[in-house]
């Protein structure tokens, strides 16, 4: 009875098959030792604990996918993969697909790696940042409908810029569903073109609560958003990756709301200034027209002068009157300056007196008659009224004695 004799290769292959059958892919935790990256991009290291060690290999593609959590010697990590046999070396190893840092310090370190990787990709570059629209019609808000953040944002937008519309896309902002919901909300707002600017945020919390805003998918969605994004994660001390990828960042939801809409008081003030500038410009125009009239009066023959003068005076007066009424309407909005102007214009108008029912008498030379003494019975008179004039002859002249007043 002879025992079979196997080749080394047969034994190794049998072992490989046994391992594959008996041990499905698994997580192994240990300390990283002797980490090496090959020129081709493969990673080799050993996981050790107090009692044993396990060689680990990560092929190039797996290594690239885990670039942001690249192991370092001495770090405690978990690696997931299948056990197999390295035939040439005659040993077994873990062929890892994923690695994860372990422990609080490890999370921070993973975050640092991700931050660095995304920074190198240019996701946080100033060049990528889009300007915020100065007068957004619709403000998109992605946050919890029950949090303080949405209350703060609505209060500020309502106070500063009530002509806007707020579109709230409700999401959970913590827990394992948060990243997926936030990404979905942002994509939908973009897809539907449902806002002019988007605020993403929540109202403060511990560093762990902010993890959704450090999630790679969320950060990428923010960077890729066509609509400008303002992050309002509400954490002064801890800047998230979403903050870095956003087009603008605010320390609190209220501050974010202030960033996205203009201020009503400033706008009202600006409108006042505009009205003042317009009135000033109009007054200048009307004054220069009056001067032109005066020139005309000197330049044109008496007959034509009369017609031209009448037409133009009336026209200027009408324009002045319309200006005054427009100014009065504007003055309803506490425009003291314009009210003063309206008064001034009224006083300046030579024909305003006629509007009130008075008339002016001219002699045949076109000189206004101020006293009866200058008129003799039979003299031709021209009496100018609000609209038109009367040509007459003086029937008699009654001089009035000075009352001695």
């Amino acid at each position: 009875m002879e025992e079979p004799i196997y080749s080394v290769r047969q034994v190794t292959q049998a072992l490989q098959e046994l391992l594959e059958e008996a041990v499905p892919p698994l997580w192994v935790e240990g300390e990283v030792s002797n980490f090496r990256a090959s020129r081709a991009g493969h990673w080799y290291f050993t996981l050790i604990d107090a009692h044993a060690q396990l060689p680990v290999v990560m092929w190039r593609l797996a290594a690239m996918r885990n670039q942001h959590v690249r192991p370092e010697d001495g770090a405690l990590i978990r690696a997931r993969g299948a056990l197999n046999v390295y035939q040439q070396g005659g040993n077994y190893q873990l062929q890892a697909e994923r690695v994860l840092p372990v422990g609080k310090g490890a999370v921070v370190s993973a975050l640092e790696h991700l931050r660095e990787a995304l920074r190198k990709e240019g996701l946080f570059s100033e060049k990528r940042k889009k300007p915020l629209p100065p007068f957004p019609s619709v403000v998109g808000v992605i946050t919890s409908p029950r949090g303080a953040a949405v209350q703060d944002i609505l209060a500020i937008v309502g106070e500063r810029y009530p002509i806007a519309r707020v579109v709230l896309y409700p999401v959970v902002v913590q827990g394992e569903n948060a990243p997926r919901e936030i990404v979905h909300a942002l994509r939908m707002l973009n897809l539907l073109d449902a806002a002019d600017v988007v605020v993403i945020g929540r109202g403060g919390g511990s560093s762990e609560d902010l993890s959704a805003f450090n999630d790679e998918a969320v950060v990428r969605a923010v960077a890729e958003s066509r609509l400008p994004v303002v992050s309002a994660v509400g954490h002064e001390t801890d800047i998230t990756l979403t903050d870095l990828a956003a087009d603008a960042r605010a320390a609190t939801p209220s501050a974010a709301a202030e960033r996205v809409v203009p201020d009503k008081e400033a706008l009202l003030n600006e409108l006042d200034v505009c009205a003042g500038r317009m009135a000033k410009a109009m007054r200048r125009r009307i004054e220069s027209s009056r001067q032109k009239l005066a020139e005309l009066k000197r330049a044109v023959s008496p007959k034509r002068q009369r017609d031209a003068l009448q037409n133009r005076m009336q026209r200027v007066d009408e324009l002045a009157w319309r200006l005054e009424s427009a100014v009065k309407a504007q003055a309803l909005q506490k425009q003291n300056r314009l009210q003063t102007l309206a008064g001034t214009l009224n006083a300046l108008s030579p024909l305003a007196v006629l509007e009130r029912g008075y008339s002016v008498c001219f002699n045949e030379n076109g000189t206004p008659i101020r006293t009866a003494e200058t008129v003799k019975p039979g003299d031709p008179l021209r009496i100018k009224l609000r609209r038109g004039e009367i040509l007459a002859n003086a029937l008699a002249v009654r001089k009035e004695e000075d009352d001695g007043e």
Partner: protein
Amino acid sequence: MTENENGFEEKLKELEAIVNRLESADQPLEESLRDFERGIELARECSHALNNMQLRIEQLTVSAEGEVLRTPMEPQELNADSGDRGEPE
């Protein structure tokens, strides 16, 4: 797409153009006055909107099936009165 929704920005731009025209251009008095009246009207419309409009709020959701749901809301509907999502805010 939402740009013309309230037209505020367009009105401000028109107003600005009018002010500049009135201050610089040497146009006929008649045109200046037309500009002036339009400008005052625009300024009043804008002030009126700022002073009198109420913020409109709408909740938007899109289901996994792609169904878009828009619900107008009142601010008080969003009071943080129920904590069923368990968020400590």
